[in-house]
């Protein structure tokens, strides 16, 4: 399956990655090359095969409901780009 500029534009919005107009064709070409490789999968008969999400057939371990995490706001916010009054700042969120 090949992708074109308009597909790239849609994916760019979903992934929040800006692709400039100049680069769109090249990105589309490169991704199409990858998709051509990946399309080999279509020829395989996978009837009756269950999808495998994890390499080991393990099950989730459940944690006891006990508070283990202390307040580390100062440490965590020392690496934040913009904070005020303990809050992370972003351009206005409009709902």
């Amino acid at each position: 399956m090949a992708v074109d500029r308009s597909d790239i534009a849609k994916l760019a919005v979903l992934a929040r990655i800006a692709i400039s107009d100049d680069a769109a064709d090249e990105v589309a070409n490169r991704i199409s090359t990858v998709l051509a490789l990946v399309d080999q999968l279509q020829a395989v008969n996978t009837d009756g095969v269950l999808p495998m999400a994890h390499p080991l057939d393990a099950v989730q371990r459940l944690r006891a409901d006990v508070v283990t995490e202390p307040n580390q706001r100062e440490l965590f916010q020392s690496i934040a780009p913009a904070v005020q009054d303990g809050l992370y700042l972003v351009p206005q969120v409009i709902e």
Partner: protein
Amino acid sequence: MHQLTIAELVKGLRNKDFSSVEVTQHYLDRIARLDKVYNSYITTTPALALAQASAADKRLAAGNTPALCGVPIAHKDIFCTMGVRTSCASKMLDNFIAPYNATIVENYLDSGVVMLGKTNMDEFAMGSSNETSYYGPVKNPWATDCVPGGSSGGSAAAVAAHLAPAATASDTGGSIRQPAAHCGLTGIKPTYGRVSRWGMIAFASSLDQAGILSRTAEDAAILLNDMASYDTKDSTSVERDVPNYTATLNDSLKGLRIGVPKEYFGEGLNPETAAHVEAAIKVYESLGATIHSISLPHTNLSVPAYYVIAPAECSANLSRLDGVRYGHRCENPKDLNDLYMRSRSEGFGDEVKRRILVGAYALSAGYYDAYYSKAQKVRRLIKQDFVDAFQSVDVILGPTSPSPAFQFGSKSKDPVAMYLEDIYTIATNLAGLPGLSIPCGFVENKPVGLQLIGNFFAEAQLLNAAHQFQQATNFHQQTAPGIE
């Protein structure tokens, strides 16, 4: 001093032949003097290293210390190290000072291991040549016009250039084994779940596994003893005792059943590489192993399946890098969307962006079944190939990489050519199996890697097989030309 293996350093520190501060200072001096050529480190931490070394010396003086106490190593810059920049070789995390330690970093701190610094890599571990790093490419000590392999290229180059006695690394599709092959090192990727992923910045969560790059299999065994652990902070960590990997290194290989998959010797394999692997098979026969021809029929599908699954997982894993809580944030965002778009576009390199877009595509409405779900089914078929094969053999043997290290730029224009670099290593990640690469010869003075794949949790057996090979050969003792 930099000629010494980890095993020799352990012995020397214990015998007080030298102190940890002396060894550490020696390596720090070498890095400062020589790494300009290789660019194997992103960050060095001399003050911290010397403080750790001095503390280790005190522990050593008091006696009864863990084996690795006082031994300096380097960490791949994918592992979070508290108070130290952890960049994942991305502009996105260039300013990220990790506020916590990865479990493996913590494990080594407990043992008194000294950290020399953080090694270069492909950005977010996405690459097979170390050409995608924000901090520039790493040069292969064996041939500085060639890549060291990737994504753990910095760790491999640092060990090969004797700028660290060993280094941690991570392997999602071959990122430990392929650089080990290209740099003449021993590299082990343990079974998925054997080593904690807590604090290892995720590329593809169901494939990522931490491991080791070292000069010898014995060193890898010593280091894996402390790296492996069951970790309640990682849901995919396996609750299973860690064996003493050094205890079985000297076991005889008599009767070991080695499977050689015919699919690993097909088109695309450099004939000289093939010849060295064939020669290695003869070595194993001479050590008492039996050789069996096997088939892993879905091998050719591992690269396509991987390039759906890994990008899909990475597309979600990298969404947290949004310029809000840490990491790169664009200047003066005009609105929320602008903040996201520009921070991410400025912060990520091209290959990372491409993989995120491919992943978003594979998961998007209308394509999920054809791509993601299909790849997950093929993944099961690939795993089943191995499960079937291990019914009749103990270890699977083949080349690590189709050909020796290639020149810079020769594959970076064609993503698919680059992806095929990992054709022999990717299937083990999809299946979750342990794999290891050891040097088995040279082509045009560049090292060739021999890959051994083990059954689930058979790391001890792999290390035993590798160590016995290294007792019978001296490829692993060769040093790259020009290394002082």
